């Protein structure tokens, strides 16, 4: 009887089509090559990890010593570090007064970590000390020094740092103030706003439109985008914020809702960036020209952008209701390569896909870090080719 059944099953298997399943093996064709990507839990799973609902990664930055620092958003915000030597994520503590830290972690030349919080709107300083020797204690407060609030009533929307000048620059929300924090003097200066009005739109739109990140060029000038997609430049020598006559790329008519999502400095002195409509552009900070490099994806948003040692730019696109994809751009040829969904499949140990990405950074040894921003989030490590 069993032989008969075996024969039957063998016969049927031989004529069956590939089985549909919850996850078809064909799916591996549309995700990032599995030999070039891995993922990390945010802590020591399953217990000592940043809890679900508090793990959306919304800030990543690499310190001068190569350590990766990141911050999460959710019902609480956490700071974590990844020391490349060890390779795992170590939660450092709950950031006081914060449920959100959006592109607002920077590290000074001395190694101090500065965190811009929301909704409190305070700038905090964390001084790293023997992190590897500390045990993980989920829920303990992060020891920080509160440096104050840059603009009263405003939360911090984005931060960048000029390590040479020892100056931190930021944008605030909801009123789009541009501020400077002098590390030497400990003083904040408010230089005005990059957006005065909420653009015309539907009833559910309540935000003044500004860039999600900032960048410092080789001369120490700071760039952001603001109202109507216009670029703004802060000249630290003149201590002046000015609106430029150039705009982030947009389909004509969509400028009022256009933001720069990501900025990236290039060794050539140029600045690359990505917009909320998903365009990649190159900004010449000397001649103040913008070149639209097109769209790598049929999706909105450029959630992050880094430059790898192979000379290519790597980015992630996709809005919160889409599915994030990784792409590369080769400046020497102008060619895009769409690499697929950000997914790690290491069955039977773990399998996870990032549908939404909140931040990217690149390590000193070329590993690209991709921070997932969802209720349950992981940190992804992508290894670009040489």
């Amino acid at each position, binding site marked *: 009887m069993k032989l008969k059944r075996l024969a039957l099953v063998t016969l049927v298997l031989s004529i*069956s089509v590939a089985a*549909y399943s919850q*996850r078809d093996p064909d799916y591996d064709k549309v995700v990032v090559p599995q030999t070039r990507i891995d993922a990390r839990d945010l802590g020591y799973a399953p217990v000592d990890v940043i809890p*679900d609902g508090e793990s959306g990664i919304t800030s990543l930055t690499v310190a001068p010593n190569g350590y990766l620092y990141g911050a999460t958003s959710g019902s609480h915000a956490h700071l974590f570090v990844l020391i490349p030597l060890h390779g795992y994520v170590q939660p450092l503590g709950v950031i006081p007064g914060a449920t959100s830290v959006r592109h607002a972690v920077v590290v000074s030349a001395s190694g101090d970590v500065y965190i811009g919080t929301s909704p409190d709107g305070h700038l905090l300083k964390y001084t790293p000390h023997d992190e590897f020797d500390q045990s993980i204690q989920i829920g303990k407060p992060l020891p920080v020094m509160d440096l104050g609030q840059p603009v009263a009533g405003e939360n911090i929307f984005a931060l960048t740092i000029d390590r040479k000048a020892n100056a931190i620059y930021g944008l605030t929300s909801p009123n789009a103030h541009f501020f400077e924090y002098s590390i030497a003097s400990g003083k904040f200066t408010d230089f005005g706003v990059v957006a005065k009005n909420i653009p015309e739109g539907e009833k559910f739109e309540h935000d003044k439109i500004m860039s999600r990140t900032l960048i410092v060029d080789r001369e120490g000038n700071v760039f952001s985008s603001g109202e109507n997609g216009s670029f703004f430049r802060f000249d630290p020598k003149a201590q002046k914020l000015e609106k430029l006559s150039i705009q982030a790329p947009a389909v004509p008519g969509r400028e009022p809702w256009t933001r720069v999502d990501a900025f990236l400095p290039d060794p050539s002195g140029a600045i690359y960036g990505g917009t909320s409509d998903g365009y990649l552009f190159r900004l010449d900070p000397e001649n103040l020209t913008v070149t639209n490099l097109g769209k790598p994806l049929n999706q909105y948003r450029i959630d992050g952008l880094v430059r790898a040692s192979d000379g290519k730019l790597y980015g992630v696109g996709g809005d919160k209701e889409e599915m994030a994809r990784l792409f590369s751009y080769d400046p020497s040829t102008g060619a895009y390569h769409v690499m697929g969904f950000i997914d790690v499949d290491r069955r039977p140990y773990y399998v996870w*896909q990032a549908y939404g990405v909140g931040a990217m950074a690149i390590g000193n040894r070329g590993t690209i870090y991709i921070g997932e921003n969802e209720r*349950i989030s992981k940190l992804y490590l992508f290894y670009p080719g040489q």
Partner: protein
Amino acid sequence: MAKKQAKGWKEDFRRVVQAVQCLLMLAFLAFIPNANAASKIVTVEYRFFPGLARMGGNWAALKAASDGKVYVGLACNGCSGHLVFYDSKKNQMVDVGDLNTLTGENGLNLGPQSKIHAKFGEGKDGRIYFATHAEQWFDYARFATQEGYPGSHYMAYDPKTGQVQDFGIGPRFEGMNTGAYDPKFDRIYGLTHPRGHFVYYDVPTHAKVDKGRINNWDSICRTLGIDGDGNVYGSFGHGQIFKYDPRTDDITELSARLPIRQKGISLGRDYNKAETAWRVVVWDQQTKKFYGVEESASTLFSFDPAAPPDNQVKRLGQMAIPEFASRRNVPYATLSLTLGHDRKLYYAAAGTEFDYSSSAGAAASHLITYDLNTGKIEDLGEMHLPDGRPVLGTNAADTGPDGTIYFVGATSVKATPGEQNYGGKIGSVPYRLALFIYHPKAD
């Protein structure tokens, strides 16, 4: 002349081939039940869905309502699914309509509303609540695109008026992979696909809420359980359980763990299906426990939400066909579990990996019971129709107000040349969807 002769030979050859094919098919169909003298047979009645022969699947979407109507969601691959009901009092099958039309999306060339892929629920107002789903995902290449699937609709069918109310799209671009309706709080709950978010629609306030990610490819929960107080439970991660409390609107993750099989047993299936979730659970108001079957080895368990954290989940046995019980290749658990009025759990176990056209082969399902009073598991035998055809698999079960047990699944049919009078093929066997009816008292 030579041409005519050649044509005649071709015709003869074609007839011979057809005859051989017919003989092989008949032999094959007769062989499927795997009947031998020792095999037990349990006979079930059946009703086909008239005019809907091409519907290819049904998953979870079965509800035996209090008025005797039995609601079924029929799935269509690449086209619109249908909402139907069987009026058990009139012995009549009624097609309420195709889902594209009911959602107002007919003719828009959007990804179709191909399925109801989750459980229906019956409201205090007598309406039947549900949400729609997509069938084809194309490796998500069309996700969030103009031609892609627009998203699941929350809906209600009113048996008094025969009208369907569309509450609109809930999760944009996503389907409702899993769902449940709670009459206490008057809400439709769901888990979306592909992003695995926990969402709900609050009928009184019309609020559509997304509570964020709960599932990923590591674990896909196919049944949400709702207790007598309106708390919602689901599985996630490595055999973990979450709880949603509508009073606080919060999700908490419990420390209880499901009795899933150790990972690392490579069946091929393991790559595609995570085997870390509960497949199906039913709530028992009498013991105030859930009873469920997990997906890796069809292990039956109880889950008592009120028990101390380390004592909430208990392994009760295995609901697989006994000959598979100690083997690696236990067929993937089905969604066909229901609690009968006789305090027995009824479970239709697959005879081989079953997923309609994607099944590994054709084999008869077995009806297996677990007696809540005695703890005894019994294999009632292969499920056959009165004409001897086997039930080739099911993926939904429910109990009617009179104690009748209903399943929806597939049975073999004879293909009619020149027309597709079947929903698909399991291996080489044409099948058609049917409602299967079992009367426990008849045994």
